[in-house]
């Protein structure tokens, strides 16, 4: 019966639209690589599919009254909660299938690229599916109460927008800085709250006496959830370095190592042997090494947006060549352009031309002297290098 309810209801359309939204969230229009397992799962969690699921559930649940089925259903033996449960399950199937289709593609990519899997990375996926369950249950309740599906949908989506403002799923997003992983305790509480919430909503929609127990239980869980301030814990393993020769990324970004290596290694080779020049590339912005920052890569593992990676090259050398003690933008630009070969303005071109008038050996000496003066913040020495 579930498959019939799914196929003949809003299920297939919901699957397609949810899949499209999650796909856009995860891969974007440019088919970017989704990142680590946790990043991917979190992207799925944050896809705005709740209004869609809710709308489909309202539509499906209001169908009985729309189609004048009350008398036939009112004389049937099957308990109302089983009937509502079937409607709910068909919507959950529709939403979950849409998510699963896209996650399936992501899994293939993540496995193929050996992306980093943080402990408990799967929690956001669990919460996503349970969230679909809760949204569907709310939609079923509204659909049963309101015989006019359009009004139910409008009210529900409006309530979603209002209630989501600074609350709901947004509170469950990970912090922006550092490496974090889902904390099992709070995430179990989220799962429990959503599960009991589903039970409460379905029993309410069915006027089942279990609602007397389920609704207060759901409210108590929600109160505990509201008091929870942190849903994430630090993941020290994610920050560990994974290196190829002298080029390193964090473990969380290990899927970018090949690409970073291809860009950073020639830069390191160019300055090899110059006194004071960095010999490593790592995710550190102290200036002692090339600064390996986060990178969006595509399905083929290459960097997105800028195939020649000029910006990324400049980012890598930025902390090494940028003056921190005095304004020497012109010198900094010349050093960056000489090192990376990337020129972005006529001023930089002119500065580079002055350096390139020197012999190759003198150019290397000039660069070493520049780094030395920069570290000492020696204004006179820097001025002499102009």
């Amino acid at each position, binding site marked *: 019966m579930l498959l019939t309810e799914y196929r003949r209801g809003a299920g297939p359309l919901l699957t397609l639209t949810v899949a499209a939204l999650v796909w856009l969230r995860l891969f974007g229009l440019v088919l970017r690589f989704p990142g680590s397992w946790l990043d991917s799962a979190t992207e799925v969690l944050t896809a705005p599919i709740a209004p869609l699921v809710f709308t489909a559930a309202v539509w499906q649940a209001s169908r*009985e009254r729309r*189609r*004048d089925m009350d008398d*036939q259903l009112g004389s049937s*033996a099957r*308990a109302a909660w089983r009937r509502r449960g079937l409607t709910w399950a068909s919507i959950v199937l529709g939403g979950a299938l849409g998510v699963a289709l896209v996650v399936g593609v992501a899994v293939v990519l993540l496995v193929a690229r050996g992306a980093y899997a943080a402990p408990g990375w799967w929690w956001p996926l669990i919460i996503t599916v349970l969230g679909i369950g809760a949204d569907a249950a709310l939609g079923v309740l509204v659909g049963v109460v309101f015989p006019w599906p359009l009004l139910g949908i409008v009210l529900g989506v409006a309530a979603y927008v209002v209630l989501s403002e600074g609350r709901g799923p947004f509170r469950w997003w990970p912090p922006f800085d550092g490496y974090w992983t889902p904390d099992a305790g709070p995430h179990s509480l989220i799962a429990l709250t959503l599960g009991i919430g589903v039970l409460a909503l379905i029993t309410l929609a069915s006027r089942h006496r279990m609602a007397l127990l389920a609704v207060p239980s759901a409210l108590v869980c929600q109160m505990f959830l509201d008091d929870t301030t942190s849903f994430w814990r630090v993941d020290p393993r994610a920050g560990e370095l994974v290196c190829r020769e002298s080029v390193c990324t964090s473990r969380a970004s290990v899927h970018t190592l090949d690409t970073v290596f291809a860009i950073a290694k020639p830069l390191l080779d160019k300055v090899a042997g110059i006194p004071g020049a960095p010999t490593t590339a790592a995710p550190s912005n102290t200036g002692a090494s090339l600064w390996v920052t986060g990178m969006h890569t595509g399905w083929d593992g290459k960097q997105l947006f800028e195939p020649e990676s000029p910006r990324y090259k400049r980012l890598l050398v930025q902390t090494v060549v940028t003056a921190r003690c005095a304004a020497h933008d012109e010198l900094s630009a010349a050093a960056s352009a000489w090192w990376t070969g990337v020129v972005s303005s006529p001023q930089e071109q002119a500065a580079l031309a002055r350096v390139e008038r020197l012999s190759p050996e003198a150019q290397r000496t000039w660069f070493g002297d520049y780094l030395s003066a920069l570290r000492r913040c020696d204004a006179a020495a820097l001025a002499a290098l102009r």
Partner: protein
Amino acid sequence: MPQVKTHKLVFGYRRRQVIKGLTLSFGTGVHGLLGPNGAGKTTLMRMLATVNRPDSGTLTVLGDPLSSEAGLRSVRRRIGYLPQAFGFYPRFTVREFVEYFAWLKEVPRGRLSDAVDRAIERVGLGERADDRLKTLSGGMLRRVGIAQAIVNDPEVLLLDEPTAGLDPEQRMDFRVLLRDIGRDNCVITSTHLIEDVAAACTAVTLIDSGQSVFQGTPAQLIAAGDPDCDGDTPVERGYTSVLRAFRAAS
């Protein structure tokens, strides 16, 4: 022993009393429920189908007074009901729709597929079983309604205006089906078509203004007819005579 019994049954919508102390009994056979518009036929059928609970009086179906949830559920497994306003999901196929009702009536999983096929065959829709309901004519939809009502082989079958929309040939087939089911079960069919009653029913119940006017066989109804009364057929004259006599007395 009658499968359905009502005793001083009362029911109303807000302040308006529609059923006023009805005492009736229905045993094995096909019972025609007759009455003018507004007599309370549909309301009575809804009560017999356990959709509405009586305000007072007792209703016993298949020996159960419907006082407990378990008893109600057990009875609902054993009754079939085609309401006057038959609702359906247009995207479902005939088979899916009947299967849905078999599930709702808790037909055991092992028997479900056979029960669905048999119900569809009995209403003559075997060749349209995989067609969507939205592609069927009004008469065919009515037959789907009958199929969903009989899919659980009900011991009590309640049909509210079942022949509305059926063509003469379909109505004759339907009467055969009624007689077949009514051999071992209790069938109560509410209708305006008196000739259907005369042709297919073993008993007739006539109600007016929520009260019982007549309960007997079609022959007894015909016998009660005044030859001078309005009506083209003997059964119509019986119907009119009994109704007028009741109204004159009350």
